[in-house]
């Protein structure tokens, strides 16, 4: 029977080329956008290299400071002193890393000008993050303390600055200092703000005063990454940090309160997107789901509409089928099969297009080192979406059609 449904479905779709085209277009286009969005979301939030331990990592980045007079400052504005005193001192974590956000720098070599991103990091940075080293290694806590002039650079930096030659042991100039290259890592996307840079050097080379007693630091700011021994330690660490926060002193005199937290990655992004205070329990995910749902709703309604009008158009066919022995159930299955087949074909087309589009986006260089991939999670989500799509758009029209009396169907569907 299933084979019959399948055969009939193919015949019908083939004969109704215009309808098939319109449906396929609608389905593939919607799915294409969904897959690309999902890929972005995955790329931004998922545990990809070098942030492989995201599930047991917390970060302290954003904060809101308030002054006595009601003034407010919000953003990534902590000083290294604050992070050292209140985050580094946490007892529960396995590791705490202190690093700067990336600084845009300009450097010259043989009269050629280069724009790079430079990041000041500590030894723990290389332990918490799992960079993919092409050559060499990261620097150690000792390197940082001894102020050894060492640097890690990205593959692209090597290709540009050293014109593709091996860079290990060679010298690169950054921020008025010469550094010896001790490691080359695979490029990191700008969307992964924690690890992202072109050049990484010991944080002891920053021109910021690491020991200046203040809460607020300079541009582009500093953040701390906290690696827990185990996922289950995360709430304990968060509680410990909140206790530290209650004891915060305000050396500047200007500020009277601070609002921040040790956040998971999704929470941190939410904080920066919505400048939200206090509890940050995954409203981002809800937001994304609502958005996706609304986004799906439109084409689904549209497809249901197309399906209903197609059914009315085919009502005399339905009448004929009923007259010659098709039961309502048979016809419902027939219709659902048609819809599932067409959505699966649409899904295949959209996957194919998505691969092309992702390639184009990656190659366009809009976002440095963006490397969107279509991984199995994105694929599975898309497939499920596809099937929901097929069922949603098929079940209602099929039900409506099955209610039709054969005589009425033969007459053309008006009851």
């Amino acid at each position: 029977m299933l084979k019959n449904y399948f055969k009939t479905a193919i015949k019908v779709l083939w004969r109704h080329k215009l309808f098939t085209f319109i449906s396929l277009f609608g389905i593939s286009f919607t799915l294409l956008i969904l897959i690309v969005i999902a890929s972005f979301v995955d790329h931004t939030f998922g545990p990809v290299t070098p942030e492989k331990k995201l599930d047991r990592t917390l970060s302290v980045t954003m904060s809101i400071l308030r002054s006595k007079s009601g003034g407010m400052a919000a953003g990534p504005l902590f000083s290294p002193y604050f992070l050292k005193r209140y985050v580094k001192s946490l007892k529960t974590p396995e590791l705490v890393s202190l690093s700067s956000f990336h600084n845009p720098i300009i450097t010259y070599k043989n009269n050629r000008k280069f724009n790079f991103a430079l990041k000041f990091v500590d030894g723990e940075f290389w332990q918490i993050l799992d960079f993919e080293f092409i050559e060499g290694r990261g620097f150690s806590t000792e390197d940082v303390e001894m102020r050894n002039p060492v640097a890690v650079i990205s593959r692209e930096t090597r290709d540009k600055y050293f014109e593709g030659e091996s860079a290990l042991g060679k010298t690169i100039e950054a921020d008025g200092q010469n550094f010896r290259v001790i490691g080359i890592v695979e490029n990191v996307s700008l969307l992964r703000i924690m690890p992202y840079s072109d050049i990484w050097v010991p944080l002891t080379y920053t021109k910021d005063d690491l020991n200046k007693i203040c809460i607020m630091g300079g541009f582009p700011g500093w953040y701390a990454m906290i690696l827990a021994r185990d996922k289950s330690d995360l709430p304990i660490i968060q509680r410990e940090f909140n206790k530290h926060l209650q004891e915060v002193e305000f050396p500047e005199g200007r500020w009277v309160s601070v609002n921040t937290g040790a956040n998971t990655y999704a929470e941190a992004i939410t904080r920066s997107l919505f400048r939200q205070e206090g509890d940050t329990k995954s409203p981002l995910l809800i937001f994304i789901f609502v958005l996706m749902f609304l986004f799906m709703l439109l084409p689904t309604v549209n497809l249901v509409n197309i399906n209903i009008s197609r059914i009315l158009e085919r009502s005399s066919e339905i009448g004929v089928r009923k007259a010659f022995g098709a039961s309502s159930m048979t016809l419902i299955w027939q219709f659902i099969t048609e819809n599932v087949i067409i959505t699966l074909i649409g899904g295949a087309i959209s996957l194919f297009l998505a691969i092309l589009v992702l390639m184009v986006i990656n190659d366009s260089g809009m976002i440095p080192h963006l490397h969107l991939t279509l991984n199995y999670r994105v694929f599975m989500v898309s497939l499920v979406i596809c099937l929901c799509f097929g069922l949603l758009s098929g079940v209602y029209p099929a039900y409506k059609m099955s209610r039709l009396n054969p005589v009425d169907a033969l007459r053309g569907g008006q009851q």
Partner: protein
Amino acid sequence: MIKLNGIEKVYQTEKIETLALYDINLEVERGEFLSVMGPSGCGKSTLLNIMGLLDEPTKGKVFIDGESTVSFKDRKRANVRNRKIGFIFQSYHLINDLSVVDNVELPLIYRTMSSAKRRKRALEALEKVGLSARTKHFPSQLSGGQRQRVAIARAIVGGPEILLADEPTGNLDSVMGGEILDILNKLVKESNTTIVMVTHDDSIAHQSDRIIRLFDGSQVN
């Protein structure tokens, strides 16, 4: 074979109520060729649709093979239509998206049967109506007479005991109409099929075993 008991049919529309059939009592014997005549709008099609379980009467009972169909659910009704009844309509009602042979196979796809066997029986039915040369055509490529012959092939392919034909020659000229009638006559003789045919044409009706006449939803004799 078919027995109608006190059949009444009322069409309820927003403004008016039409009494399409009133107190119809009728019995059709196995192998009988019955003609139904009457002016337009007197309820002939309604009667045929009720006999064929395409429509339900407002009152009264339809018996097929001695079995009351009142309690039949959708699936059972579909099964009876599939196994026991073949329809022929005035406007053919072929599926334009399907080829001639696929159209003829239609009743068989709602049975469990291998596709090779289905195809074989469809081709045999097409041979009986003299259309072996047109199996791969689509309905839009055929003349009216040819289309009606496809419709007959579809009606007989499943070997039904009852053929219900609603003005099968109504859209055809007298030559083609005559051919269609010859085919139907031959079928009754060969396979002892029961035929109920609605017609306007006296000369056609007189070739049948019995004629009943309707007037304004009632049987007159």
